C-alpha cells in the first residue's frame, strides 16, 4: 500500500518558522490532453485549446486563446489588435507575455500592461472594450504575445457593475522553487504563502510559470478545484511520467493534492485552477449567460447601447 501511494505521489515542503516539513503529496492524474487548434477570431489567427471538440468547458474556465504574433511595424494602432466589442456575464483575463496591450473600455478604464502583467476584467452587466498592441509596437514592430482566458461568473455576479483590474509584472507576487529554476507568478488565489492581488468572484488559483530546463517543482492545488495546465512553449514532464508539448492543454482529475512539473526544455506555462460553479452555461460569441433568453437580452442591451459605447482616442 505504501509503495503504491509513493508511485503516484511527490514530496513537497512546507516552511513553518524555521522548521521544514516534508509532505507527501498525492499527485492528480491526467484526465485528458487537448492540442490547440487554430481559429480565426475576428481576423486574428489564434491557438485555441479550450473549448475543444467534445470539451465545452472546464468549469469555471470557458476559453483559452493564445495569441502569438510578430508585428511588422509602420502600422497605426487603430489598425491592429481587436477593436471595440461587448461582453457580459463572465471575466475575460489577459496574461501578457511579450509586448504591451492597450486596454480601453466603455466604463472609462484605459491602461497599457506589458509582459509579465495581467488585465483582469469582470464584464458583469456589460462592457465594451478594445485590446490593441501598444502604440510603439504597432509603429516600430516587435513581438506580441498574450493568453486570454475566460472565467465564468456565478449567476449572482453576472449583472454586477463591470470592473477592470490591471496588474503589472512587478506587482505580481513570485514564488521560486528550491532548485531556483522555477518561478511562479501568483495572479489570483493563494499559493505557498503568497496571495495573488486580483479579487475574484469565485475561488481561483491562477499561476504563471517560468521554468528553466531541468527545473522541478511540486504545485499543490486545492483538491476541489478543476485544474488546467497549458505550456506556451518548451516541453514539460508531468508527475514524473508524461511529457507535454507546447500548446497542448492538460486537464487533471480531482483525485489528488497537486501536480509535479519538470521542465525538459525552457518552458513558459500557465495553471488555471478553480472551484466549479456548477450552473447552466449558455455561451455564444461574447456573452456567457445561464439561458438563451439571457443571451438575447444581452444582445438587446448591447444594441440599445446599455453596455456603453467606446470611442477610442488615438494619439
Amino acid at each position, binding site marked *: 500500500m505504501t509503495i503504491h501511494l509513493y508511485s503516484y505521489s511527490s514530496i513537497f515542503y512546507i516552511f513553518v518558522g524555521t522548521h521544514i516539513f516534508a509532505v507527501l503529496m498525492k499527485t492528480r492524474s491526467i484526465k485528458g490532453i487537448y492540442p490547440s*487548434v487554430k*481559429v*480565426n*477570431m*475576428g*481576423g486574428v489567427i489564434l491557438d*485555441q485549446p479550450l*473549448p*475543444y*471538440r467534445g470539451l*465545452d468547458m472546464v468549469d469555471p474556465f*470557458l*476559453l483559452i*486563446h493564445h495569441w502569438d504574433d510578430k508585428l511588422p511595424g509602420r502600422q497605426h494602432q487603430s489598425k491592429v489588435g*481587436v*477593436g*471595440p*466589442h*461587448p461582453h457580459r456575464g463572465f471575466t*475575460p483575463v489577459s496574461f501578457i507575455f511579450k509586448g504591451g496591450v492597450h486596454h480601453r473600455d466603455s466604463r472609462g478604464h484605459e491602461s497599457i500592461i506589458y509582459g509579465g502583467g495581467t488585465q483582469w476584467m469582470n464584464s458583469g452587466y456589460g462592457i465594451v472594450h478594445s485590446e490593441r498592441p501598444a502604440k510603439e509596437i504597432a509603429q516600430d514592430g516587435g513581438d506580441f504575445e498574450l493568453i*486570454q482566458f*475566460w472565467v465564468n461568473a456565478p449567476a449572482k455576479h453576472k449583472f454586477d457593475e463591470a470592473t477592470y483590474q490591471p496588474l503589472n509584472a512587478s506587482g505580481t507576487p513570485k514564488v521560486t522553487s528550491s532548485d531556483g529554476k522555477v518561478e511562479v507568478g501568483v495572479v489570483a488565489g493563494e499559493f505557498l504563502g503568497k496571495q495573488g492581488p486580483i479579487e475574484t468572484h469565485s475561488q481561483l488559483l491562477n499561476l504563471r510559470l517560468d521554468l528553466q530546463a531541468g527545473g522541478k517543482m511540486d504545485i499543490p492545488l486545492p483538491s476541489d478545484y478543476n485544474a488546467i495546465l497549458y505550456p506556451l512553449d518548451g516541453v514539460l514532464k508531468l508527475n514524473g511520467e508524461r511529457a507535454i508539448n507546447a500548446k497542448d492543454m492538460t486537464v487533471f482529475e480531482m483525485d489528488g493534492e497537486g501536480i509535479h512539473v519538470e521542465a525538459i526544455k525552457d518552458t513558459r506555462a500557465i495553471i488555471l485552477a478553480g472551484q466549479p460553479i456548477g450552473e447552466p452555461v449558455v*455561451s*455564444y*460569441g*461574447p456573452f456567457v449567460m445561464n439561458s*438563451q*433568453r439571457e*443571451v*438575447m*437580452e444581452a*444582445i*438587446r442591451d448591447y*444594441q*440599445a447601447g446599455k453596455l456603453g459605447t467606446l470611442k477610442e482616442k488615438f494619439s
Partner: protein
Amino acid sequence: MERRSFLKWSTTALAGGMSLPSLGSSLLPGAKTAPGLVEGFYQLPAAKGHVRHGLFNLQKLNQPALPKWLEVFEQHRFFKDGISESGSDFKTFTCAIEGEMITLGYDDQQVFIIQGEEVIEASDSNRAKNFQILRGASSIELEDGKESVIIVLEGKAVINDERFASGEFLVSDQRVRLTQQETHSLSVILYPS
C-alpha cells in the same frame, strides 16, 4: 399579371460601406421571373461566423435594393461548440423598420424576437404590426398592394413558383404565396407601418 425581368446580386457580400460601383461584374441578371414577383430578388451576405469570443458588433449593410423604410444589419452566426459551424449554431438577424430595431435570434430549436424592450419566444407564425415570421413546413399568402420584404433566413422556401434559398430575399407589393416544406425553414416578412 405582368411578368418582368429581375436582377439578382451575386453572392458577393455587400458589407457596410461598400459602394455600388465596386461591385463590377458581380451584378448579374436574374433568372427568376415567376408571376407576382414585381420588384426583384436579391441576396444578403452570409452570416459572420463567431468562435467563442468572436468580434461581435453591429454593421449596417449597404444594400441598395432595400426600400427606404428598412435597414438590414450584418447577420451573425455563433458557433455552438465555440469552434466551427454546425447545425445547432445560434444565429441573429437584425433590421430596423422605420428606425425601430428588431432582432431575431434562432437555432434549430427555437426563435426569439427582440422588439424594443421585449424578448419574445416566437411561435410558428408570429404576426406583429410590422413583421411576421414563418417557421417550419407552412405557408402564408400576402395581400396585394402593400410593399413587403420577404427574407429566407434558414432552409428553403417557394414564393409563388420560385425557389428561394437561405439569404435570398424578395421585395414585392403584389399578392404572393410563401411556402416552406422543411421543418427548419425560417422566413421573415417585413412591412412598413
